[in-house]
């Protein structure tokens, strides 16, 4: 028994020494943690712009982590650019704590797959980091402008993330989701895009990727329609024509697909609840009749938003709602017959909406003005 114990200890020691030899031993202060990475394509090569905290200005007693610094790497591929970035940096560079990847418009037009492939093969990368597209500009420009204006880029992006979470129940623009889409050969994908406002970033809607290449930007309503259909809405404001403002407090959608002679019909059932947030109507909106009318109006409002998303898909033939995955899951046997012609079938998909809602709370003021 003693011999066995000794053997186990020797074995463990051997394993420990062997494996630690292969490990990347580096003190935390010898690493530059990239908070935000911009991926661009400029002058025929990829440009990576990294933002990290420098030691200057760091005050541990005050909890300050130092000023933001940027560093740039160039190369024919993103990986080559990343190696260049590493070489140019004084310290070791790590993307283990990178929370945001900003993909410039031109890089996105070259293909999102090329941009994120090297990230997927890094064992330290955080899979829940968020990916955004910077509309009309390069990510580097986006970053430099922000720094010039005295903004802290990663804090601004955190604010964007928080705003996103106020509206939707989950962020689908995580690296892992995008890699999953790539893995499953999803023909069309969507990634949120950012625009630069005066002093902050603004999340506008979704950038559409067709065959992994950026092709279009969706407006806010169409993007919200997608969120409703994907069942990720947490809150959404409704502005009705009679000066009544409502806010969705609960939303649940179910999507069902039907196949009839290889023709796809999608039934979208949406249930949602709203609260009256503003009532500037001259009528009493809280009578049973008015409430019914309001309910119909809010149903129409949301239907139109969802129809924007489905109409876009029909008109462009891009599967931005990922109906392919739905049909594959719900009709796995018949999917093999459809898969080859799927691209051409997207425009022929018939959508049916079944929307039910109710207005739940009216708070203290129960009458109109």
């Amino acid at each position, binding site marked *: 028994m003693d011999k066995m114990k000794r053997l*186990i200890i020797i074995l463990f020691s051997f394993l420990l020494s062997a494996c*630690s030899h292969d490990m990347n031993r580096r*003190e935390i202060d010898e690493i530059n*943690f990239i908070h935000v990475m911009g991926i661009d394509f400029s002058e025929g090569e990829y440009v990576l712009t990294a933002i990290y905290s420098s030691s200057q200005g760091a*005050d*541990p007693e005050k*909890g300050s982590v130092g000023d933001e610094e940027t560093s740039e790497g160039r190369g024919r591929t993103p990986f080559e650019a990343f190696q260049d970035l590493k070489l140019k940096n004084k310290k070791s560079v790590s993307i*283990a*704590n990178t929370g945001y990847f900003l993909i410039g418009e031109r890089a996105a037009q070259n293909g999102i797959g090329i941009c994120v492939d090297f990230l997927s093969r890094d064992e330290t990368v955080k899979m829940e980091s968020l990916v955004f597209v910077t509309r009309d500009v390069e990510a580097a420009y986006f970053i430099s402008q922000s720094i010039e204006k005295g903004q802290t880029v990663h804090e601004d992006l955190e604010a964007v993330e928080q705003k996103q979470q106020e509206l939707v129940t989950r962020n689908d623009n995580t690296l892992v989701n995008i890699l999953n889409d790539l893995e499953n050969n999803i023909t069309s994908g969507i990634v949120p895009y950012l625009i630069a406002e005066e002093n902050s970033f603004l999340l506008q809607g979704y950038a559409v990727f067709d065959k992994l290449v950026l092709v279009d930007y969706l407006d806010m309503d169409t993007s919200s329609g997608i969120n409703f259909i994907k069942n990720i809405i947490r809150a959404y404001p409704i502005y009705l024509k009679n000066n009544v403002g409502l806010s969705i407090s609960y939303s649940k959608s179910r999507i069902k697909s039907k196949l009839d002679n290889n023709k796809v019909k999608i039934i979208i059932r949406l249930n949602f609840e709203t609260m009256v947030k503003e009532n500037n109507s001259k009528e009493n909106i809280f009578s049973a009749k008015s409430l019914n009318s309001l309910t119909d109006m809010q149903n129409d409002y949301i239907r139109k938003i969802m129809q924007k998303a489905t109409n876009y898909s029909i008109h462009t033939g891009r599967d931005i709602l990922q109906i392919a995955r739905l049909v594959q899951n719900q009709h796995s046997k018949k999917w093999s017959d459809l898969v080859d012609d799927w691209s051409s079938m997207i425009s022929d998909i018939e959508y049916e909406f079944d929307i039910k809602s109710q207005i739940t709370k009216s708070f203290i003021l129960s009458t109109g003005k």
Partner: protein
Amino acid sequence: MVIDMENRINSAWLTKLFTKSGDVVIRPIKINQNNITVYLFCVDGLINQALFDDAVFRSLKFDPYLANCVTERDMMDYLLEGGAYHVFTKEETDYQLLLKYVLSGMVALIFDSEEKAIIYDIRMFEKRSIQEPSEENVMKGSKESFIEVMRMNTALIRRRIRSEYLVIETLSVGRISKTDIALLYISNIADFVTVNKIRERINSIDIDNISTPAFIEEFLVENKHSIFPQIMYTQRPDRVSANLSDGRVALVVDGIPFAYILPCQLPMLMQSPDDYANHFLVGSSLRIIRYLSMIVTLFLPAFYIAATTYQSQMLPVQLALSTQAAKQNVPFSSASEVLGLLISFEILIEAGLRLPKAVGTAMSILGGLVVGQSAVAANLVSPAVVVIVSLAGISGFIMPNQDLSSGIRLSRFILAILAALGGFFGLAIGLILLITHLCSLNNYNTAYISPFVDVEERNVKDTLFRFPIKHFKKRPKDIAPYNHIKQGNIKDG
């Protein structure tokens, strides 16, 4: 002539034996009427002189019956039948036992012709009064703790268990010290195999002197190489009585102000008397905090080393950045910082123990605050490491048992070194080895980490959580295999 008397009960031999010992009294007492002389044999300072004078000496000098006794045998018979006014009287013919009794504070009357002695137990020596336990104090509950006198300690236990089945066997250990050890168990509950094994172990101890408690502990533990305590000590008689009722065995050693409890299991060491004095939810919460503290004290320094040296991606972004900022100007590696500070922490504890209380407190402030603060200011250690080591240190002291606390402190070092060598991989190896070691410990036929390895219903209810008392219906089967019903059904309300 003297040589013939060697090792026999004889005043001349005893006088020669103790001729250089000033405290040993061998004094002739002549009964004048019949010309018989008996010898008083005792140790000055260990006997109650007033009681001896009153109960024994007065009888010897003035009892008319004794004056008429013709032989020593007549005198002995009379004294044994109550001639002297003392109840703890016995005749002794064994020379070795006579020496033991007298040297432990009894008084002997030597009858040379008979080569026998009469022993009177009128011991009285300076001892501490019963005080509050210094280590296991409770808000609600008994304030009594053991003292250095074995018989007093057994009396404290007997007072709590008024059962005829409570057995207090007295054993003796130490070739020179002849230290008394009381072996306590409840005969109709305890497992006799365990009792016999412990008795055999004690009887097999062949050592000159039991100078410190560790001497007994080392002989009694089954796995001597383990740093985890396999024998529980307590200062509290109520705790001993509770464990005796569970079927365990207690040992009370003369000169040691606490009792040992065997067999010992890890969950026992995490229990505190306060758990039972409070509401069960409060008790359970305190216990969970203790287990969490154990995890913190064991793994936090190692986790910090692994996370800051190898797998920094394990840290959340903000934490990584603040740790990085804190460590920016420190010239040492994280492992050196943590290990250095852990060693400093142990030095502070050790120094605090050795110094007088008042100086110890001042030194703790000086060491902990002034030196710590200065070390941070001088960029010798980062503030994060000070926090980590302090947190680990404080968490370690939450353990109710100091032996366990010491074991965990040592394990903490091993885990920190493994983390320094291999990051989380090293830490994982350390954890595997630790769990394997704990699982392999067998303590008097019981698993050390029972009931985590055997999910017997009753045991589980007093481990991580403290269930209401009404759920403690059974004793652990491995401790009390033949009598494990502890409590009848209780009607609620």
